[in-house]
């Protein structure tokens, strides 16, 4: 089936992944509009651009839209589209279930956004919606209920989709594709999806409990109730942070390896490090709760600081891949390098806030806002764009314009650092997050103005990207099957791939870079003509 009906009903993983990705991108633009409205309100102290209530709705819906409806589902979309191709599978396991998950997620997003039309407004207690602030007494109204139900549906949908990817990796790898021959992106996607499977049931449970609490259940009451909510929420809420990181790390890693014409360095160490990372990520959640007095701070400081070991290995491998390579600075490569360097600021500030004594100051301030935007925006979103420029030709059959791509990169790097770097100073100087107004304080006005201008610059960068997509699809430059000398199996089929992914027989799979193996064998034959027997 083709056209709209095909997009709605097809069980082809490429269709599901593409629909999920395009819907996520729509939510990205929506969440970006919320961010621009917030930054306008914060441009100067005591602005009256939006009301206090509207501001609270905006920051809640910005965070919720970006986390539940863009960065996480986009990671899943990339996994659904790319993993079967990379492991040489013809289709996804349980594709109907996956499709149902996609629609459940999409409905969840629409339910959440309907809160804007409810009296009293949309969800307005933050993306983490701490009890007892989020209970029926303190935040009554249909908008907050719609937020809770929306999160339940979105989380359940993503859980199902992630399970389908895990099952596909378990059951549908091509002959020869052992686990330790899976491409780097597939490994990062698999580990992410395992974290979704491990952590998202908790989100569904805690949101169902919150719904009951809001309607007379009185579950999260008193000190224990408040602490319990945070424990349950962050047991989901911290793993999801790495779900929103790994697939973009994998995308950046693939872009770097291919653009360096060299296979990813330290594969085994990398796989071990992301597995250790994922395991630790399930044991760090209460570093969000150092100032509550309700958790054992030392334990969570230990696990959180220990994360620097696997994270450091990933950087080591990235540099090891560059050294000795033959580097082409395409847009995908530049985005991937920007991902690693900008994420580093987020990662290093993460080690900082993992220390309870430092977090006693940083918690709840713009230091935290700066930290997670450096990981999620300056990191993951740049990794996402690296992936887009890398795989767009495979998905559409046309390459994106390089000049517009480099312009987008430049604009986005400037805008991102203008927006998020000053936040470190503001937070250290005492500006709390989630305030719609702030007192006049020396320096704060200037820093906030710079941030607001930076947000506008980011918007221009995103606009450049949309123009690039439009132009590149309108006046197509055909990509061919393998425009970048790819390493992995998705480049061994047509662009876009046929319904069952591969028409020609698969090349032999003897490593995590089977196409590079072929090229290297080819080069060896070309270099040794004399050794060929004369007969």
């Amino acid at each position, binding site marked *: 089936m083709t056209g709209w009906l095909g997009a709605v009903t097809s069980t082809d993983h490429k269709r599901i992944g593409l629909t999920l990705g395009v819907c996520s991108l729509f939510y990205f633009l929506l969440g970006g509009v919320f961010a621009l409205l917030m930054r306008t309100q914060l441009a100067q102290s005591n602005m009256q651009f939006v009301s206090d209530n509207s501001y609270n709705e905006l920051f809640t819906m910005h965070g919720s839209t970006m986390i539940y409806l863009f960065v996480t589902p986009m990671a899943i979309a990339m996994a659904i589209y790319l993993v079967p191709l990379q492991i040489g599978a013809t289709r996804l396991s349980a594709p109907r279930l996956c499709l149902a998950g996609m629609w459940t997620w999409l409905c969840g997003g629409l339910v959440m956004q309907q809160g804007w039309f409810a009296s009293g407004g949309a969800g307005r207690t933050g993306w983490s919606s701490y009890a007892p602030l989020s209970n029926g007494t303190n935040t009554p109204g249909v908008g907050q209920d719609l937020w809770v139900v929306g999160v339940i549906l979105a989380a359940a949908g993503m859980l199902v989709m992630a399970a389908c990817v895990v099952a596909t990796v378990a059951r549908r790898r091509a002959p020869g594709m052992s686990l330790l021959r899976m491409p780097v992106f597939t490994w990062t996607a698999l580990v992410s999806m395992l974290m979704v499977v491990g952590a998202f049931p908790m989100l569904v449970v805690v949101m169902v409990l919150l719904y009951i609490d809001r309607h007379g259940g009185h579950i999260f009451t*008193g000190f224990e109730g408040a602490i319990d909510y945070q424990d349950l929420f962050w047991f989901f809420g911290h793993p999801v942070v790495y779900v929103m990181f790994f697939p973009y790390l994998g995308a950046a890693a693939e872009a770097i390896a291919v653009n360096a014409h060299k296979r990813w360095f330290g594969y085994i160490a990398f796989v071990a490090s992301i597995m250790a990372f994922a395991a630790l990520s399930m044991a760090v959640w209460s570093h969000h709760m150092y100032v509550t*007095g309700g958790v054992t701070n030392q334990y969570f400081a230990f696990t959180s600081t220990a994360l620097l070991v696997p994270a*450091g290995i990933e950087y080591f491998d990235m540099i090891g*891949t560059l050294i000795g390579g033959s580097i082409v600075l395409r847009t995908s490569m530049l985005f991937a390098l920007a991902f690693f*360097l900008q994420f580093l600021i987020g990662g290093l500030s993460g080690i*900082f806030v993992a*220390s309870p004594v430092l977090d006693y*100051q940083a918690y709840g301030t713009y230091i935290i806002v700066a930290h997670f935007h450096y990981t999620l925006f300056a990191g993951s979103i740049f990794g996402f764009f690296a992936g887009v420029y890398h795989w767009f030709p495979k998905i559409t059959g046309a390459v994106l314009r390089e000049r517009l791509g480099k312009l987008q990169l430049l604009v986005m790097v400037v805008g991102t650092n203008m927006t998020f770097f000053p936040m470190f100073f503001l937070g250290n*100087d005492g500006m709390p997050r989630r305030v719609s107004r702030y007192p006049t304080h020396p320096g704060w006005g200037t820093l906030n103005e710079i941030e607001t201008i930076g947000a506008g610059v980011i918007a221009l960068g995103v606009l450049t990207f949309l123009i690039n997509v439009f132009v590149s699809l309108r006046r197509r430059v055909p990509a061919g099957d393998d425009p970048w000398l790819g390493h992995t199996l998705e480049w061994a089929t047509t662009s876009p791939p046929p319904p069952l992914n591969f028409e020609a027989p698969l090349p032999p799979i003897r490593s995590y870079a089977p196409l590079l193996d072929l090229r290297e064998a080819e080069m060896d034959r070309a270099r040794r003509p004399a050794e060929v027997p004369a007969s």
Partner: protein
Amino acid sequence: MQVWSPVGAIQGLIDTRTEYDHLFSIYVPIAIGVFVLIVVLVLAAVLIYRRRPPERAARWHEHNPLEGTYAVLLACVAGFLLYLTFTAEHKVDTVANQEHPSVVIRVSASKWEWAFSYPAYGFTVRSGVVGRQPLVVPAGEAVRFEITSLDVIHSFWIPALRYKHDAIPGSTQIATLVFRRGVFPGQCAEFCGLRHADMIFTAQAVSPAAFATWARSRGTAAAP
């Protein structure tokens, strides 16, 4: 550096600000050093290995002993940072249990105001949407805060002290803090609903003698 005031009275007390500044002065330079190192390595690698023909790309792709050594090195860095953090945290959290504070102040947070009551003197000052009565404390002495909330979670934060503690309904938690002389803004650091931004207060740390005078006048006169 500001001078302690009065110098003799703070001996044996642990100052949250000093502990934070000490850790900050170790964590942040290490972070900046690591950032610069990696940026330089990446830029150098890109410049050196640019535009070589693909055939010249090296084929080596693994060095497990090197990676293992590197991982051990990273673990040592993590261990060093944790040692510093645990030492500082032990001090800061022990402050919370100081046995002999010179004054006890009960902090009751509610939407959207702070009520600071002085049980020894029998009065309460309030700040937030209701107005701006200052929280007055004696400088250089241990001040014990008993923090609670009447409705949702708030967070008692004085940025200049580099310390905050949540105010959670159903519990009373202790934070014993030491102030240098001066005027410090404070505010709620946990989102608490519609007028969270207005939940601000001012802490005035004055000499113990001035504090005693002020407290005996039961806060009816303007703060010194």
